[in-house]
């Protein structure tokens, strides 16, 4: 068996709304598979169906070779889940939480102690194992939850937004765990996130999801390469006017307004930058800064979904400029 997960026309309907729309996707054994998309794209619904929490409206999927509808019990034994929201008992100690999980997943009694020690070591919580969870910090709880998901040695681990609400240092820490985990445990990881950097750093392959469908699926590197050219990020005293000018005079199509900057994707940024500055000067727009950078996953996401992952406000502007799309090459 080469695929840890296969979905066949997997669909979830809520009345006439299709949260997940005829999804066909395969996740390879042993890879970290990133599922990326804005809120409401259908990521969590997809994962819920794969975890047998939700029943598909039509279609089905296999996880670790078991059908999610007909063999949900076996699927449940094969998977570990780290939910988006906390799901740990804070009146029990770390060790008690792990022991309870081991019992619920019928880990052989003779192996419980060993597994718990192993997992505690992995998430570096050995010295806090006998403290009540309510005394743990957010990052520690998260680590314990990830550890808990591993107690029964699942074949597939689902991580739903594993680092939401954590500080950068803790996030970095958790990312390293996830990487190490995959190396050491021969496990397949399905990661849903709306953090671009997270998906970029961890995933072997990324599927970008929008409106219940997978828009594109590739390695992070290839996804970025498909966006040719450079991104120029400009800060000026009138970003909006500058955008209109660039569309009118230089015919730029790939532009988007960020909160305080204008981002333009062009084939050859070095040559274009002076012309932008010139144009701004002629129209008395003052440029505070102008930076050239390589496309990141955020740009990829925008390219494929037509909306920013963080907020949807840029959607309309982007759509407008897309109408004028023509190459300047």
């Amino acid at each position, binding site marked *: 068996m080469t695929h840890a997960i296969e979905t066949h026309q997997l669909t979830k309907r809520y009345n006439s709304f299709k949260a997940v729309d005829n999804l066909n996707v395969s996740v390879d054994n042993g890879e970290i598979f990133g599922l990326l998309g804005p809120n409401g794209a259908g990521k969590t619904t997809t994962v819920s169906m794969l*975890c*047998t*929490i*939700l029943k598909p409206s039509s279609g089905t999927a296999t996880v670790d070779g078991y059908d999610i509808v007909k063999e949900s*019990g076996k699927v*449940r*034994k094969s998977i570990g*889940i780290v*939910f988006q*929201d*906390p*799901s*740990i*008992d*804070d*009146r*029990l100690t770390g060790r*008690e939480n792990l022991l*309870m*999980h081991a*019992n*619920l*997943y*019928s880990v052989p009694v003779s192996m419980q102690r060993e597994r718990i020690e192993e997992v505690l070591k992995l998430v570096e919580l050995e010295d806090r194992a006998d403290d009540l969870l309510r005394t743990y910090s957010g990052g520690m709880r998260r680590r314990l939850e990830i550890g*808990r998901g591993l107690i029964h040695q699942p074949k597939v681990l689902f991580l739903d937004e594993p680092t939401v609400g954590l500080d950068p240092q803790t996030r970095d820490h958790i990312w390293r765990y996830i990487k190490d985990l995959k190396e050491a445990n021969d496990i397949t990881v399905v990661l849903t996130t709306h953090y671009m950097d997270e998906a970029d750093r961890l995933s072997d392959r990324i599927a970008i999801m929008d409106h219940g469908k997978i828009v594109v699926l590739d390695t992070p590197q290839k996804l970025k390469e498909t966006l040719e050219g450079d991104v120029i990020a400009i800060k000026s005293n009138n970003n909006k006017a500058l955008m209109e000018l660039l569309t009118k005079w230089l015919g730029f199509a790939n532009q988007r307004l960020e909160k305080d900057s204008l981002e333009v994707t062009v084939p050859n940024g070095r040559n274009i930058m002076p012309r932008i500055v010139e144009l701004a000067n002629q129209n008395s727009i003052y440029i505070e800064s102008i930076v050239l950078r390589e496309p990141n996953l955020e740009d990829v996401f925008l390219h494929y979904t037509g909306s920013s992952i963080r907020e949807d406000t840029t959607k309309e502007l982007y759509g407008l400029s897309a109408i004028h799309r023509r190459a300047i090459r």
Partner: protein
Amino acid sequence: MTELRGIYTLWLREIKRFIRDRARVVISFIQPLLWLVVFAAGFGARVVIPGIDYQQFLFPGIIGQTLLFTAMFMGISVIWDKEFGFMKEILVAPISRFSIFIGKMLGDSTAAMLQGVIVFAFGFILGIPFNPLTLLAALPVMLLITFGLVSVGLIIASFIGSLENFGAIQTFINLPLFFLSGALFPATGEGIPQWMQIASKFDPLTYGVDALRTVILGSSWTPLQPLYVNLAIIGIFDLAMIGIGTWAFSRMKK
């Protein structure tokens, strides 16, 4: 085996949580004492129950009340599990919803029973005359009462989304069941309004309190129904609630 282990695990969790919540344990000690000492002294001075001292009459009622309140409270604690997310961990585990329900039900029932036994000890200390051996006879009756009441709590909790509705349970479930059960005063017989007599027939605790009085007070109490009828009614109630509870849990999503 998997299922039994799951049930045991969930049972153990409820017990641990119950024992660790010291503040609540202390509060729940005080309440029955207030009823048995203060209320019994004042109310008993004016009310006459033929053949029995009022405190003696009240004692089995307060055991019933303690079982009711604790059972309901523990059952409702599923709302906490839902709100703090722990329910999800249980619901995705590879054990059946029936086992999840039974595990919780047994755990919460054990907690309610512990509470009930403590009231028994108070009764002994307060010098309420009863044969200490009646505890042995009362325990199975108490257990039977508790199963159904805990189930009601669990069922309600599985439907309610947030803790805001918690006070409503006290107002709409606990107090009516308590008052109508005949725990504080006879809810049937001469002078009791017709509506109350009828309402008390629909209160499962009526049969529980009557059964407890039969067992604890012995010949000084004239039962409303023979003991076996009481127990049969409570047993049927329990089975119905366990059935509904399993159904309620199987439709729970988070």
